[in-house]
Each structure stands twice: as structure tokens, then as C-alpha cells.
């Protein structure tokens, strides 16, 4: 596990890049002055909020992130179609439910990303995480098999996130 270096000028290269690109896209101008302003903001903003994000994990394997994002996009498309069928189909066939997913990770950042992933893929919403970060409670629109859903979440999303963050 690697933590972000608090005192470095660029504590997290990803936050730096993200802020830099988002600023350029927001202003939609690419002159030298605006590039300098983007550079200034993407260094100054993380510095201003350094107390809030203290002790955050660093990404251990950044090369795995594009694959994860592509997989997530694909899953969003596939399950959107499934949820559309469920919404338009017979209500009586739906078996909604709360599912307790046991977590292997104990770090707030990867758990937040896992919870967001679950909420973004249709059919499941992260409802709550237990106070000791050991259980993630998920509400699903249709649960034919509770264990299968837990296994799917753990294998498809938690395992790659654990690899990416090295925890």
C-alpha cells in the first residue's frame, strides 16, 4: 500500500492531470496564459484541500485503470438493457432485496470507488457501508440468487480495484 506524499508539489499525479484537463475543457481555450493558469490551479487546489484528503491511498497499478473503466462502461450498457426489460416487464417477477457484500478492503477510497461502481451499474445501488468498513449493503432491483450477486460484485469489481490500489 502506498500513501500519497503530503509534502510533494504534486502529491497525486492523477488529481493533477484530471484538474489540468478539466480546466482546459471547461474554459475551452488553449493559449499559453490559460495553460499556465491550469498548471497553477492543478497544483494549488490539491494543496488547499490537503487536510481533507490526508492519508489517502495512491494508485499502485495505474495501467490497470483504463481496462477497469472500459469494463465498467460495457457493464453499464449491458445492464441498462436488462433493467429496461425488468422495468417494462411484469412487476411480479421482480424480487428486490438488500444484499450484504463482505469486503476484503478496509480503505475508504477503494470502497468509495467500489460503491460508486455498483451504483453506476444498473440494477444495484450501494445503500450503506457498515461503520467498520467490513460490509457493503447493496439494494438490487432483482435478486434471483443472492450468493451469485455477491460473487459477481467481488470478482468483477472488487478484485481489480484491490489490484489497482495494491491493498
Amino acid at each position, binding site marked *: 500500500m502506498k500513501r500519497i506524499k503530503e509534502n510533494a508539489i504534486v502529491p497525486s499525479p492523477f488529481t493533477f492531470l484530471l484538474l489540468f484537463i*478539466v480546466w482546459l*475543457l*471547461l474554459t*475551452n481555450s488553449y493559449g499559453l496564459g490559460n495553460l499556465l493558469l491550469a498548471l497553477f490551479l492543478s497544483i494549488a487546489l490539491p494543496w488547499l484541500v490537503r487536510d481533507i484528503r490526508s492519508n489517502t491511498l495512491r494508485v499502485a497499478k495505474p495501467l490497470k485503470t483504463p481496462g477497469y473503466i472500459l469494463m465498467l462502461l460495457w457493464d*453499464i*450498457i449491458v*445492464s*441498462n438493457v436488462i*433493467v*429496461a426489460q425488468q*422495468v*417494462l416487464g411484469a*412487476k411480479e417477477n*421482480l*424480487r*428486490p*432485496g*438488500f*444484499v*450484504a457484500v*463482505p469486503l476484503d478492503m478496509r480503505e475508504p477510497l477503494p470502497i468509495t470507488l467500489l*460503491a*460508486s*461502481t*455498483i*451504483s*453506476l451499474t*444498473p*440494477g444495484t*445501488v*450501494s*445503500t*450503506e*457501508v*457498515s*461503520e*467498520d468498513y*467490513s*460490509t457493503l*449493503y447493496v*439494494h438490487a*432491483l432483482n*435478486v434471483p440468487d*443472492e450468493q451469485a450477486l455477491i460473487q459477481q460484485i467481488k470478482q468483477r469489481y472488487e478484485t481489480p480495484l484491490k489490484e489497482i490500489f495494491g491493498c
Partner: protein
Amino acid sequence: MIVELISSIFLIIGGVFLLVGSVGLFRLPDFYMRLHAPTKASTLGIGAILVASIIFFSFKEEGINIQEMLITLFIFLTAPITAHMLSKAALHVRLPTEPHTLNRDKVEQIRTRQAEPKD
């Protein structure tokens, strides 16, 4: 012509998914199930409409127009948080769940953020 055709197709796909989301909001029986429909429709429905916008304006005007990517980014950041806060609030005011909801007895345990007991 081709560009207009492709972006129309994406607009229709987006519109259909947004419509399904609204239908779900109307049809589904309890709050937790209704929560699924609009939060999900927004990701793919709005996504498809933004793709249409990117394609159309990239060809119509000079240069690639990818500012729409920002909208996608902000939706992806805010949609899960909205869904989480809504369901948290629903648990807090003890909104009723459907009678045949699986693990209905765990609602109190979830509301008080207790861990799942190990067996």
C-alpha cells in the same frame, strides 16, 4: 447527411432509455426500487445524447468538440452519491419496503450501519 443520421440514432437511443427511466419511476412499487430507474437511465440515456452531440458538432464545426465529456464526467461523479444519499435518507425515515423484499429483516441493521455478523 450520414452524420445527421448517426446522431439521430444516438438521440433516439438516449430518448428511449430516459423514457424507460421515467416509466420505471412511475411503475415500480417501493422507493428503493424506484430509485434504480432514474439514476440508471441518466447514465446511458444522457450518455447517448452526449455522444450524438459530440458527433454532430465535431463535423458541423471545425475541430473535435469534446466538452461534452465533462458532462459525462460530472454525471458519473454525482449520480452514485445522489443515489447513496437518497437511499440513506429513505432508510433514516424508515420508508416502507416491498413485502417480498429479500433480507427485509436486515433494514434496521443497515440503517444503524452495523457489520454483517460472521457465521
